[in-house]
């Protein structure tokens, strides 16, 4: 049986958070409640982000794809959050330590590396699509869910 990677409880719209840590603590809560991840998952995501930032300078809206080691994950889940005000994040690769504004976040809770690759490739497929990113940013929970299922094919 193929299990869905996303449900509406894993979608957060127009969140008002001040920084990355607050964001992750908040959006990881349903994953913890459902025992999709271990308790320390959000802390591990925050820690990894410090060493290996995941901000992506996509146009016209910055995206981030925070994640952590598969061992903190029981069940594969993708959480999507759109932010009321962008947060500053470091760019993946961080060659020049520059910060970008991120307004769309895909929090990846994936338990196997082949699953990570598979989801990463799906996300890479939509990252260059400015119009799709705009629709996610403006979307309601239901609209984002439909985009996730039908267009990103999560």
């Amino acid at each position, binding site marked *: 049986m193929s299990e869905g990677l996303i449900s509406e409880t894993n979608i957060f719209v127009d969140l008002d958070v001040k920084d990355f840590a607050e964001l992750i603590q908040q959006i990881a809560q349903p994953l913890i409640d459902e025992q999709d991840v271990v308790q320390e998952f959000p802390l591990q995501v925050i820690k*990894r982000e410090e*060493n*290996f930032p995941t901000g*992506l*300078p*996509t*146009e016209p809206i910055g995206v981030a794809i925070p994640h952590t*080691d598969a061992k903190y994950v029981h069940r594969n889940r993708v959480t999507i959050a759109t932010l009321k005000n962008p947060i500053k994040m470091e*760019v*993946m*690769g*961080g*060659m020049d330590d520059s910060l970008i504004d991120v307004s769309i976040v895909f929090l990846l809770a994936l338990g196997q*590396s082949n699953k*990570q*690759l598979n989801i*990463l*490739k799906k996300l*890479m497929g939509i*990252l*260059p699509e400015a119009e799709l990113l705009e629709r996610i940013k403006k979307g309601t929970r239901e609209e984002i869910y439909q985009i996730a299922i039908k267009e990103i094919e999560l």
Partner: protein
Amino acid sequence: MGKNLLFVCATGIATSTAVTEKVMEFLKEKEMTDVNYSQTNVASVQQNSDEADLIVSTTKIPYDLETPVINGLALITGVGEEKVLNAIYEQLKGE
């Protein structure tokens, strides 16, 4: 003589694989077929870079290496992707 390309990301698993597939596909289209590649995580890059002619990385490499490094971020976002693919091609061709 074949060139050696080393792909680097944080864990040496997901991101570098996605980037590897894109680059190798592009080189194939350019009919550059004598390229060998391997992948590694950033913590092991020093041990693995000696034989590499070029490194493509999506993570910051906090060491000084003799091997030239190209930032592969554009291959993830798709923004400026052609430019980076061509830079990789030119670098491999030029040596």
